[in-house]
C-alpha cells in the first residue's frame, strides 16, 4: 500500500497531464496557426471548431495543478517556486487566450482579440515547454525545499523545449483542423501539417539525443542492460507512427492524421516518463518522497475512480453532440 499508492496517484496525475496536453494542445495549436488564416470567415471557422470544447479541455490543467497539490504537495511546493516565472507567464497568457473566445465575438473590430488569441496561445505553449524542460533538466532541492537560483530554468535546452512544444501543438491543431473543418482551412492545415511533422520529428530527435548526452541518469536508464532490450521498441514505434501519419496526410481519411499525432505525443510523453521515473522532481525527489498522507491519496483516488467515468461520459457526449465538420463562415454563437 505504502509503495503502490503513490505510484497509482502518479499515474492519475500523469494521465490528467496527458489529457491536458492532447486536448488543450489542439486548442492552443489553433491559436498558433490563427495568423495564417486568410480572412475573418476562416478564423471564425477555426475558432468554431474548438469553441464548445476549450473550457473543458483547459480544466485538465486545473486537475493537474490541484491534483499535484492534493497527492504530491511536497513536489507542488518545489516545482511552483522553482519555475515561478514560466508558470506565471503561462497563466497570464492563458487568461488572454481564454477571454479572447468570448471577447472576440462581441467586439466590433476583431484585430485586437485575434492578436490576443494568437499571442496568448503561443506564449502559453512556449511556457509549458519551458516548464517541461525545466523539470527534465532537474531542480536544485535542499531539505525538501527549492534551493536553486531564480533563473535556473532558463537554459538553452528549456527554451528549445518551448519551441518544440509550439511546433507540437501546432501539429495537433493542424490535424484537428483537417478532421473538423472543410474547404480552404482544411487544405491549408494539410500543407502545414506536413511541414510541422518534420519540425516536430527534428525536435524529438534532438531531445532524444541531447538528454542522454547531458544527463547521466537518463543515459543509464535507456542504454544500460537489460533496459535497452525492453526500450528499443519506443523509438521504432515512433518512427512507424510518423511514417503512417505522413501517408495519412496524403489520403482522404481525415481523422487518421489527428489520431496518429495523438499517438506520437503519447510516445514522446512515454519517453519522458521512462527517462524520469520514479522522480517527480528530478534528480532528487521521487513520488514516494513527495506523496501526501495515505488518507489524502486514498480520498482522492476514490473520488477519481467514482467521478472520472462520469466526467469522461459527458465529455464524450459533448464531442458527439458537436460532431461533423465546421464549414467556412460558420460563426460560433
Amino acid at each position: 500500500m505504502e509503495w503502490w499508492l503513490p505510484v497509482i496517484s502518479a499515474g492519475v496525475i500523469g494521465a490528467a497531464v496527458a489529457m491536458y496536453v492532447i486536448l488543450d494542445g489542439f486548442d492552443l495549436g489553433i491559436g498558433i496557426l490563427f495568423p495564417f488564416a486568410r480572412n475573418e470567415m476562416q478564423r471564425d471557422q477555426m475558432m468554431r471548431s474548438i469553441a464548445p470544447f476549450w473550457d473543458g479541455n483547459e480544466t485538465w490543467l486545473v486537475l493537474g495543478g490541484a491534483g499535484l497539490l492534493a497527492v504530491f504537495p511536497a513536489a507542488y511546493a518545489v516545482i511552483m517556486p522553482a519555475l515561478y516565472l514560466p508558470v506565471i507567464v503561462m497563466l497570464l497568457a492563458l487568461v488572454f487566450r481564454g477571454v479572447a473566445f468570448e471577447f472576440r465575438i462581441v467586439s466590433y473590430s476583431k484585430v485586437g482579440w485575434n492578436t490576443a488569441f494568437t499571442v496568448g496561445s503561443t506564449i502559453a505553449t512556449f511556457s509549458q515547454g519551458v516548464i517541461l524542460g525545466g523539470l527534465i533538466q532537474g531542480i536544485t532541492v535542499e531539505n525538501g525545499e527549492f534551493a536553486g537560483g531564480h533563473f535556473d530554468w532558463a537554459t538553452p535546452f528549456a527554451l528549445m523545449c518551448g519551441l518544440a512544444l509550439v511546433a507540437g501543438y501546432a501539429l495537433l491543431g493542424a490535424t484537428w483542423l483537417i478532421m473538423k473543418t472543410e474547404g480552404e482551412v482544411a487544405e491549408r492545415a494539410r500543407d502545414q501539417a506536413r511541414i510541422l511533422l518534420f519540425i516536430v520529428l527534428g525536435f524529438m530527435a534532438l531531445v532524444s539525443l541531447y538528454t542522454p548526452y547531458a544527463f547521466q541518469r537518463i543515459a543509464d536508464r535507456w542504454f544500460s542492460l537489460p533496459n535497452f532490450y525492453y526500450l528499443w521498441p519506443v523509438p521504432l514505434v515512433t518512427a512507424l507512427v510518423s511514417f503512417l501519419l505522413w501517408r495519412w496526410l496524403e489520403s482522404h481519411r481525415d481523422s487518421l492524421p489527428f489520431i496518429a499525432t495523438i499517438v506520437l505525443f503519447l510516445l514522446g510523453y512515454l519517453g519522458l516518463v521512462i527517462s524520469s521515473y520514479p522522480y517527480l522532481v528530478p534528480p532528487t525527489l521521487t513520488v514516494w518522497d513527495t506523496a501526501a498522507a495515505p488518507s489524502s491519496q486514498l480520498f482522492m483516488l476514490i473520488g477519481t475512480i467514482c467521478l472520472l467515468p462520469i466526467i469522461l461520459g459527458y465529455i464524450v457526449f459533448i464531442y458527439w453532440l458537436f460532431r461533423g465538420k465546421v464549414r467556412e463562415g460558420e460563426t460560433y454563437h
Partner: protein
Amino acid sequence: MDLDPVLLARIQFAFTIAFHIIFPSFTIGLSAYITTLGVMWLRTDDERYHRLMRFWTKIFAVSFAMGVVSGIVLSYQLGTNWSRFSVVAGNIVGPLIGYEVLTAFFLEATFLGVLLFGFNRVPPWLYVLSAAIVALGTAISAFWILAANSWMQTPTGHEMRDGIAHPVDWLAIIFNPSFPYRFAHMLNAAYLTTGFVVLAVGARYLLAGKHVEDGRIMLRMSIGLMAILAPLQLLIGDLHGLNTLEHQPIKIAAMEGHWDGSKPGDFTIFGWPDEENERNRFEIAIPNAASLVLTHSWNGLFPGLTSVPPDQRPPVLNVFFSFRIMLAVGFYMIAAALFGAFLWWRGQLFETRWYLRVVASTWWTGFVAVIAGWVVTESGRQPWLVQDILRTADGISPVPAASLLGTITLFVICYGIVFWMGIYYINRLINRGPEGRALEEPEGLPSRPLTAAEEAAREAIGSGR
C-alpha cells in the same frame, strides 16, 4: 531592494483572488437566474422568457470566461506564492480543491458548451437542463472552496505530525464548525449580487423606455427574490457572527473595534481604531449594541482585542472598515428590496422614476459587499494563514521580492485590460438588449441542409457580428 516578500506575496494573492471572486459572485447567481428563466419558458411556452434566457446567457458567457481564466491562476498560485502552506496544509486543502475540479469544474465547462452552442442541436428540455447543470456546478464549486477556506478558519478533523496536517476524519474536515454559515452566507451573497444587477438592468430599460416588457419581468423577478434573500442575509450573517465569536473571538473584536473585554461592547457606527493606543478615536457608537447582538444580553461580555498580545491581533483597520462597508451595503439592499416590494404592492413600481434611478445606478453594490466581506474574514484571521496552525509569514514560497514585484505589475496590467474590456463589452451587450438575441441567425447543423435563404443571410451577416 528592501521589500518584504511576505507583504508582496499577500498583495499579489489578495489582488488576484479579489479579482477572481467578482466573477463567481455573479455567475453563481446568474446561472441560477438563467435556469429559472428557462424553466418558466418551458412551462409557459412564453417566448419572452426564452429571449431573456438567451440574452443573459450571452452576458454569462463573457463573465464566466473571466472567472475561469482568473480561477486557474489561483490553483497554481497556492504553490507559487504559498509553497510552505502547500506542504503544511496540502494533505487537507489539496483534496478539497481536487474534488472541486472533479465534481464542479468539468461539469460547468462541459455543459456551458451545450448552453452556448447547442441550442439547435438539443431538445429544449436538454437545453434548459444544461443551464441547470451549470448552475448546480457553480454551487458545488462554492461548496468545496468554502469547505477549504472554512477549514483554514476553524480547522477540525486533522492531527499535526511533524508540523504537517494529516487528515483523520474527512467529514469533520469538510463540515468544520464555520462551514455551514460561510457557505450559506456566500451562496446567498452571490444570489443577491446577481439580483441587484438584474434589478439595475431592468430599471435601466424602463428609464430609457426600451425593452420595457423585458425590463418589467426583470424587475418583478428580482424584487420578488431580493425581498426574501436580503433580510435572510442579515439573519445568516448574524448566525455566522455568533459562530465566529465562538471560534475566532479576536476577529469579532476587530470587527467591532472592541478593545477592552471587561466592558460590554458598543456598536461603533463610525470611529478610527487606533492600534497604537488601543482605543477608537472620533467614535460615534450605540451603547451596548454589540453586546446585545453578540451575546443577546445588554451587559454581555465578549473578548476584546487587548486580551491577546499585539502580534496575535489582525490588522484592525482593514477588518473594522470592511465590516462597516459590508453592513452598509447589506442594509441598503434590504431597504431597496423591501421598498421595491412595497411599490410593487401599491402598483407604482414601474412609474416611480427616482426609485428606478437609484437601483439602476447601484448594480455594483453586491460586488463591493462580497469583497468587503472576504476582506473581513481573511484579514480577521491574521496573523494566521491556518488558524492556530500556520502563520501567514511562515507560509510563503522562497521567491525573491523582485520577482514578486515584477509579477504583481504584470497581473495588475493584464487583469486591468481584461477587466475593463469585459465591463465594456458587458455594458454594450446590456445596451443592445434582449431583442438582439431573437434575431439570431439559425446555426447550421451539418446533418440539416441549409435553405438558400439561410445561406444568403449567413453570407450577408458574415463575420460582421
